[in-house]
């Protein structure tokens, strides 16, 4: 009798519900008195029935049988998430990269893949008497800037920055890097990913790292075409 096999998943609750035929019930009870595991199953079913009955008495059962209501704030949260993702995408596409990724000590540091980007031009920036000339750069790719500090010392470490230029030296910093010490030839060599900057006026500055923010810096105006 297949339906009275103790292995049947629904056998115990069906017996408890009085849904078995008299012959099936008799077979079940015989098995029950001989098999401890079947009694354990019966006990568990009875505990589940009692637990459910308690939930019903407490009025908790109906709520458990309803699909969880969608929280009121969910549409707003979804809209906010979409807006944030959109803004992040726009920022990634149109805003300059982070300060550290625009200015580097080697082309490799500006690479997005394994191969370093090609250096499309090289410029020497050195202070001169009178008004500093504006160096005009193309935005075709990575540009090498060889900067000659006015205070040349092999013991000094430098910090380089590029900021939006309005001639006052107070523009927004868009890239910076610890440039280390000058090379044996006296130059501090930097690499600028010009393609990541929108056209406009900028200013590259070089100052001793140990000096405060008000320290005298070498400033070189740039114009990206």
């Amino acid at each position: 009798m297949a339906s009275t096999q103790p292995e049947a998943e629904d056998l115990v609750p069906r017996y408890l519900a009085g849904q078995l035929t008299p012959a099936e019930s008799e077979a079940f009870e015989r098995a029950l008195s001989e098999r401890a595991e079947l009694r354990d199953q019966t006990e568990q079913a009875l505990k589940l029935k009692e637990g459910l009955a308690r939930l019903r008495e407490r009025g908790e059962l109906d709520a458990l049988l309803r699909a969880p209501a969608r929280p009121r704030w969910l549409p707003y949260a979804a809209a906010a998430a979409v807006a944030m993702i959109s803004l992040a995408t726009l920022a990634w596409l149109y805003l300059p990269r982070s300060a550290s990724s625009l200015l580097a000590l080697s082309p490799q540091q500006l690479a997005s893949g394994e191969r370093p980007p090609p250096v499309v031009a090289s410029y020497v920036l050195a202070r001169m008497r009178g008004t500093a000339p504006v160096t005009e750069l193309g935005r075709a790719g990575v540009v090498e800037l060889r900067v000659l500090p006015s205070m040349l010392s092999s013991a000094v470490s430098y910090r380089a920055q590029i900021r939006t230029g309005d001639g006052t030296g107070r523009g927004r910093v868009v890239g910076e890097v610890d440039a280390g010490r000058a090379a044996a030839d006296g130059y501090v060599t930097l690499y600028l990913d010009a393609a990541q900057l929108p056209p406009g006026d900028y200013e590259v500055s070089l100052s001793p790292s140990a000096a405060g923010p008000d320290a005298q810096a070498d400033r070189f105006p740039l114009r990206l075409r």
Partner: protein
Amino acid sequence: MEAVAGMEATPSTLKSPGQQVILRNMAGLRAQLARITGSSELAADLLQDAVVTALQKLNAGEISDAAHLDGYVYRVALNHLRNHRRKNRSYAIDARSVAEPTDATETALPTESLEADQWAQLAKRLLQEVHPVRDRELLVRFYLREESKEELCHELGLTESHFNRVIYRARHRFRELLERRGLTKSDFVSIVAMVTLLGHSVSLHGIYPA
């Protein structure tokens, strides 16, 4: 919890003097008896009667092995449950019935009530874990409202294999939850109660030798 009923004092009931008989947990059965009869005391009496009946059978040699005593007790007690269900037609089991069932907690001992509350907590957790909601409904209608498998499969548009799968998972999960809480075994109070009842009933029915 297993109730260990010391039978050393009843040599006439056992073929091997000094043998112990293990009376297994019947907390779930006791709770259902209390629910259906509406009285925790009556439920205890029925369990006691099951024990006495089993001992009488054992004494009469109708139970060949004392190791089967607990199974026989359970069977007799379960029969009491079925008989009372038949008698008590007011016990609402129809799926569409809105009648409130007997509140067994009114007369339940505090420990019994606590135990049943724990089962309720586990049943709640089980339902919360079951998805979709339709499968929860299946469990409630099958276990609590005692609707038939065929009826439920038809109404909920389920195959028999899906039905069996839901029942199988729920059964195993509930067992896991019980085990984790240590509720597959009965509480200490149940042991004491069972032993006390056993001794009481035995002396009442004169099973002990004079």
